[in-house]
């Protein structure tokens, strides 16, 4: 009898688990209703130079609110508001708040905003709140083919949407646009993206000065102005940050999003320590002498060797203290072989500060028997984004 009862209990628990899992998968209406109070339109007030979005700016999302101080924290793209110290953000109901840029990281195209003066709504029921933060998900568990629902304020820039800019009704009217599609690929290199269009490449490169290997490819429509907006999965959690649409090329539904886990590292470190410490060793391995994006692209396409060469060692860097020299060729790092400098850059980026990396070096055509140990340090603000 006891075993039967136990079986029933187990079955009920299993059933409820299955039930709960199934209940988590939301319809698109429910996702939109759940998240729309956290999706914002961001417009940089230009103090540090023009942004790509130009007049219209981009999108973003609030992920945390401190009700005691009335401060909310929002994520957007570096290329939306990273060059402006002050931005204005607009919520779904048209309420406008002032935001201050807490930090920005061009290398991963993410900026963190601090929004002032949010109302204290912690005692209100959910449907009466005007601001409600979105939930950050886990981008590592994203499967290709999963739902990707984007929200943001597309088309909100000069001469877009066939709208009449002199008509005030039509300015900023595409806020809170929801679009759907699927995650159609993982780990797409941004270097490939840079090659799309010379003008866009130059615009991007001037601000990024970098490239990375790990964008999501999505079939969700991403238009200019969607930049910085969230990409939701079927549970209504943020899995990515929309940052690059394919509308500059004549391709349909090839758009790109940054996985949210990259942003999490950056954002939580910034919130806890007040600064973002980027793991760095001080080697120039990507490009010998960075001048322009065009030259960089030409170099990677035509002249880049099949091995990783250290073109330069930064002064007072962990690499210079370890005994590495200019002209060394990196054979392996921690037992892994690297032929692509972007991959090694990503590897360094994923290291914890203070870790020691074991480098096997080929110098003057001979492999040095004793490996060289490099301690991972912190990148200084004045170091080039192209140094690793």
């Amino acid at each position: 009898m006891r075993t039967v009862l136990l079986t029933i209990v187990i079955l009920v628990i299993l059933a409820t688990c299955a039930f709960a899992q199934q209940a988590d998968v939301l319809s698109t209406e429910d996702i939109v209703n759940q998240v729309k109070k956290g999706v914002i339109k961001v417009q940089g007030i230009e103090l540090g130079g023009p942004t790509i979005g130009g007049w219209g700016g981009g999108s973003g999302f609030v992920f945390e609110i401190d009700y005691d101080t009335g401060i909310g924290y929002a994520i957007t793209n570096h290329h939306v508001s990273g060059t402006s110290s002050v931005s204005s953000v607009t919520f779904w109901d048209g309420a406008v708040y002032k935001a201050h840029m807490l930090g920005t990281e061009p290398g991963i195209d993410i900026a963190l905003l601090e929004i002032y003066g949010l109302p204290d709504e912690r005692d209100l029921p959910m449907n009466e709140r005007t601001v409600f933060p979105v939930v950050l998900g886990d981008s590592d568990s994203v499967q290709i083919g999963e739902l990707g629902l984007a929200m943001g304020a597309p088309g909100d820039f000069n001469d877009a949407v066939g709208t009449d800019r002199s008509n005030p009704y039509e300015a900023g009217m595409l806020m809170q646009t929801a679009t759907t599609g699927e995650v159609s690929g993982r780990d797409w290199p941004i270097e490939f993206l840079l090659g799309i269009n010379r003008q866009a490449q130059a615009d991007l490169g001037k601000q990024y000065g970098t490239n990375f290997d790990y964008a999501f490819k999505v079939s969700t429509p991403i238009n200019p102005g969607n930049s910085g907006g969230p990409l939701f999965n079927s549970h209504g959690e943020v899995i990515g940050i929309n940052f690059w649409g394919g509308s500059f090329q004549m391709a349909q539904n090839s758009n790109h999003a940054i996985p949210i886990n990259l942003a999490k590292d950056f954002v939580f470190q910034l919130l806890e320590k007040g600064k973002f410490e980027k793991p760095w060793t001080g080697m120039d391995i990507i490009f010998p002498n960075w001048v322009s994006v065009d030259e960089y692209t030409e170099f990677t396409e035509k002249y880049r060797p099949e091995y990783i060469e250290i073109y330069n060692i930064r002064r007072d860097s962990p690499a210079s203290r370890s005994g590495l020299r200019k002209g060394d060729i990196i054979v392996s790092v921690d037992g892994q072989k690297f032929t692509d400098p972007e991959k090694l850059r990503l590897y360094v980026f994923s290291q914890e500060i203070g870790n020691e990396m074991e480098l096997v070096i080929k110098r003057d055509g001979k492999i040095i028997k004793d490996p060289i140990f490099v301690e991972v340090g912190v990148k200084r603000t004045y170091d080039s984004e192209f140094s690793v």
Partner: protein
Amino acid sequence: MRAFCLAVILTASLAGQALAQDYKAIDVVDEVRDSVVSIDINSLAVNYATFDISTQSLLTRQITGVVYTENGYILTDSNSIDDGIYINVRFEDGHEYEAEFIGADLQYGVGVIKINPDADHDLKPIKMRGELYNSDIGSLPYEQGEPVLAIGYSGGYGGTVTSGIISAIRTFRNSRKILIPNMIQADVPINIGNEGCPLFNDLGEVIGFHDIQGGGGSLQRISFFSPSWIVKRVADEIISNHESTRPANDEDVVWHPWLGIQPYAGSQGTSGLRTQSDDLKMFFGMPDQYWDTGILINGVWREGPAAEYGLRRMDWLMTVTVVNQDANTGEDTVKVPYQLIKNVQQLEVLVSTAQRDDIFIFGILRNGNLFDVEVTIGQHPAATAYLPDSSSDSNLTRSDLARMSEFF
């Protein structure tokens, strides 16, 4: 005990199934496929390839339509539908008819044509959401995020089905600068040939008709659809004008409600809605309790209803009540209860949804005095009959028309 155990398992699995109720596009398509038609509009055009003006060739434009009634009325896009020397309608099941042009309204973008179906061919009219609000749930009959389908003549392939969601619901000016409340923005792929294509919800009801592409098509999957209630109203008017026994004349004009006022745009320029600046309110000595209320009239159209009933430039419209007078009994029924006017869009929505002979009672502020003015809403002067062999020729000049877009 075993039975109980089984019951628990069954309940759990049933609950799971009920939750996973999938929206089946295939069911919707099955239901509405026979109601969507391809329309070929054949017209004469100059052959620019040969640069020979005397040589004329046949130009065929392919658009999409839907069966509206069982006796053969078909709804489609209004654009250049009367150009055709003949209009050809093709059904998915192979039936083909020559159609007659009935009427069109360019401002709302609705065109109506008619076929005479064969005796053995039963037409299947579409189901259409005809109401502005769903009175059962007190909200719109569609919702942001809802899955939708479009069926159309995409790129010359008849009956192409595309799907997406409602991206947003916006009160927006359509491509002819007419304010449409609750216009639908959807992310369904729309291509050339989808003009006039219907947007279906998951029940197979039409909720909208295609109006314009965002960014002239340069943006990915941003399309705007006129809500079906407005299309239904316009189509019904065109059809009843056509079916009335008297001959068609220039009075057969689709109802375009109009007040004829131009609001002051304020000093805020393009930042958001037209609201009035604080400086202006201070200049006019606005009482404190009305600080966030009222719109300022910048101009009234010469022969418009507002001018006729005594509204003037530099009046502040503070409050509004809309009443409808019964033509037979003379009794007033309040359609929109007394409310403060907070912004221009609020009033413009009230105007765009007004019926014939609605009376707007405005509380206005003029020279520091508050009093009421009654305005009976009128017909838009640019709304002219658009019928076959229509001789109507408006007296309005081009500059009049350009200026008129500032008024509502």
